[in-house]
């Protein structure tokens, strides 16, 4: 059993607990135990917080990593925003001794010291690199044949390219491979790599602009024949799911396109009960999707 400290972030536990549940349950199928991460705080939100004060952002993110270093465990997470905060901070402090000294002098006030001993992993990367597409395929009990999936990679997972580990930031394939391993089809749609509009403080600061962006994405996905949108970030998930309600109110456009976090889709394919994957907490009704596959 490989153990990770499961960094939950804020949106998943507060809005979509199904993302947490599905992650924990599906990971167990592969011998991965996502443990409760005691004492972890907000990552803190890289766009809203990091743009305000980069030093505070680094220090708070480093504090979270220190907690995990004390237990000698790597961190696993399921959110692109948290990935930026924790992965990037971990990378930068490991690479830059001056920056590390600076941050450690702040952390010292609270009795922490960043050592650089642990890794930060996005669960989608753990599934692709450590578990592998083949094993994921083997775990499928309910093949999602005929399901058209519009994949949304999000932004902070892949960019900035120099501080990430994936080969391509413009044309990545690993998420598509993991979806197709479930028997579904990853469809191509216009502006697939476009931002959902939530991050960077945009959703809080300029909701109209944020909704305009996600509206365009949903339109493109629908035009391409999507049955479901799948993501790897609770914030994108919120924007795409709850956003449809806000779009209906603001612009009058209706898509009724179900939105799932990858681990939820994985759970369905592994034959889990939709209830235990927290699908009823979604704004957009997931029933049509379930009817198609189950």
């Amino acid at each position, binding site marked *: 059993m490989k153990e990770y400290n499961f960094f939950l972030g804020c949106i998943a536990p507060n809005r979509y607990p199904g993302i947490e549940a599905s992650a924990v349950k599906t990971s167990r199928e592969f011998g991965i135990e996502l443990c409760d991460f005691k004492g972890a705080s907000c990552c803190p939100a890289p766009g809203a917080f990091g743009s305000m004060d980069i030093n505070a952002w680094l220090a708070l993110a480093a504090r979270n990593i220190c907690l995990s270093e004390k237990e000698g465990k790597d961190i696993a997470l399921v959110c692109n925003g948290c990935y930026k905060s924790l992965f990037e901070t971990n990378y930068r402090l490991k690479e830059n001794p001056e920056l590390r000294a600076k941050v450690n002098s702040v952390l010292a006030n609270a009795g922490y010291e960043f050592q650089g001993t642990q890794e930060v992993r996005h669960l989608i990367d753990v599934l692709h690199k450590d578990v592998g597409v083949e094993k994921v395929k083997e775990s499928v009990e309910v093949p999602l044949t005929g399901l058209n999936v519009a994949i949304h990679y999000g932004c902070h997972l892949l960019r900035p*390219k*120099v501080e990430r580990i994936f080969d*391509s*930031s*413009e*044309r990545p394939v690993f998420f598509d491979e993991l979806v197709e391993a479930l028997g579904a089809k990853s469809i*191509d749609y*216009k*502006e697939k790599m476009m931002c959902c509009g939530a991050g960077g403080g945009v959703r809080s600061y300029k909701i109209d602009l944020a909704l305009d962006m996600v509206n365009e994405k949903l339109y493109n996905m629908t035009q391409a024949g999507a049955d479901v949108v799948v993501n790897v970030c609770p914030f994108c998930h919120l924007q795409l799911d709850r956003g449809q309600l806000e779009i209906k109110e603001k612009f009058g456009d209706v898509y009724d396109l179900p939105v799932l976090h990858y681990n939820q889709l994985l759970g369905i394919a592994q034959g889990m009960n939709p209830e235990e994957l927290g699908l009823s907490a979604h704004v957009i009704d997931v029933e049509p999707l379930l009817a198609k596959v189950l």
Partner: protein
Amino acid sequence: MDQEKRIGVFVCHCGTNIAGVVNIPEIVEYTKTLPNVAFADAYTYVCSTPGQEMIINAIKEQNLNGVVVAACSPRLHEPTFRRATERGGVNQFLFSMANIREQNTWVHMEMPEEATRKAKDLIRMEVARASKLEPLEAKVVPVEKAALVIGAGIAGIQASLDLAASGIKTYLVEKEPSIGGNMSRLDKTFPTLDCSQCILTPKMVDVERSENIELMTYSEVEDVSGYIGNFDVTIRQKSRYVYEDKCNGCGKCQEVCPVSRPNEFDLGLQPRKAAYVPFPQAVPLKFTIDMDSCIKCDLCKADDACGELEAIDFDKPDEIVNVKVGTIIVATGFDMYDVERKEEWGYKVYDNVVTGLEFERLIGASGPTGGKVIRPSDGKQPKSVGFVLCAGSRDQDEEDGAKPYCSRVCCMYSLKHAHQLIEKIPGCVPYLFYMDIRSFGKAYEEFYYRIQDEGGKFIRGRVAKITEDPITKNLIVTAEDTLLGEIMEMEMDMVVLASAVVPTESTQKIKKLLTLSNSPDGWLLEAHPKLNPMSTTTDGVFLAGMCQGPRDIPDVVAHAGAAAAAASIPIHRGSVTLEPIYAIVDEERCGGCATCIGMCPYGATELTHVDSKLIAHVNEAKCKGCGTCGSACPSGAIKMQHFTNEQIMSEIEAFAQVW
């Protein structure tokens, strides 16, 4: 050598370059107090004629037997002052120089006191060294009356023609089956719109016909040893599997060959056979068999093909040739940057995105489409073509291997392409997305006006991304129009990426063989960027063309001419003077341990028998005076002329103010 040392020290003001920072009178007074200094004075420009006269007069009047000049870098004026010293009647190797400009006043401009103290220290050190210098005789060696040119693009061709015309036997080595390089890939050349092949082919033919040029194509330089005037070069003539003297270029082998490969000359846009010439005007017009692709069906050898001529032999081996030359010119040219690494532009992902060089092949009459510009995806003529300038150039992030420098030729060739589209396809609109339009040369700006008048559209902004309409394969180009302050999106039929130029991979190999350096941008390093761009710091090795940095054809030709002139000088003079800074073995002290044998990178040390003793001996012709053996010798038997242990130690002692 117990003759009393009388050293003259000359401190240069260098205008205000030195005098403006340090206290010259104080330095001169201090210098007079140093041991062995018989005379010290200062002057505004010691390198000038009156300055040199001052040295000569002082030598005579003060009976000097050593000279130190405290001024600029010895790398600049050591030869000047050595000559002056000789003219004064003192051996030139009794001269030494203190660098109190480049390495003192210019770098400590706000610290006059420290700089003055440092100048005194440096002069004290050089005087100490000068006290131990010995007279030496420079070696004169004959120069082989032949030259080597590596690379036969327009640079190598021009250089060889100039060398040959001045009566010098020239070996021209080219790794491709034909000469011509990248220029032979071009359709028209800016700004005159001359047909590239038309102006190049006569020169190619001249090369083939020249009695003084020995052309070796499909060949590569494998090894170079020796030194200026006496280079030993090993060249591998790769086997074409065709006897060049029997092949008459009829092309029957090509006709019957069943194997098709992408033609490298056409950047893969057109096929060639396994038996091929890269393009119809190839020089020499001899066929080559690409043995990696050949299936040995023997059709080419049949009676109705090569048959009677019997020019084809699948067992013909490579040939190794050794030549002796006096000077070498490197003309290895350029390649295009791997622009697919800039994923945002979709090169090699979207069918209708091509590079500038690929566009040349498409628009060229001998290209894959016979000169019709058509879109790769559907063969239709494009009505709107986007040009992305600075694709991979002027990129400070250097992400994905992009280059920080300007590639110099792309603005002009993009303007040329725009013109060609307007001319060939009625109604076609070219859109040039630029940061700047660099039309710097003769008639270039006028060419820019012309394209604007003809209907070229210019958008000042970088292309952020290109996406593709999956059905039409049209491209949607997103850029910021910075003059309007708006983000714009435009649908185009085709996009041309004016990608950066980069040094060829083969240049790296040649660089190691000739011990050349790179500039930080990756191109070969010249001896001096302003005053000597065609030479290197390796005596006898010169640079021609793009291998030294991006330039357009007129500048390549001028540069190649300069390289040829420089390379011909030692050959025409007949001899060169070598600095006598090589190693000498004191046979009495030598213990025959052979430590030095392993140290020398040139194999210049040998063990010989003197009487019954094993003694090391240095071959003066091979020794370059690096000092690696001298510092390793356990017996202290090796003396490095002009950089002896005694001389260096006295410099160190002077540095530490011990006397």
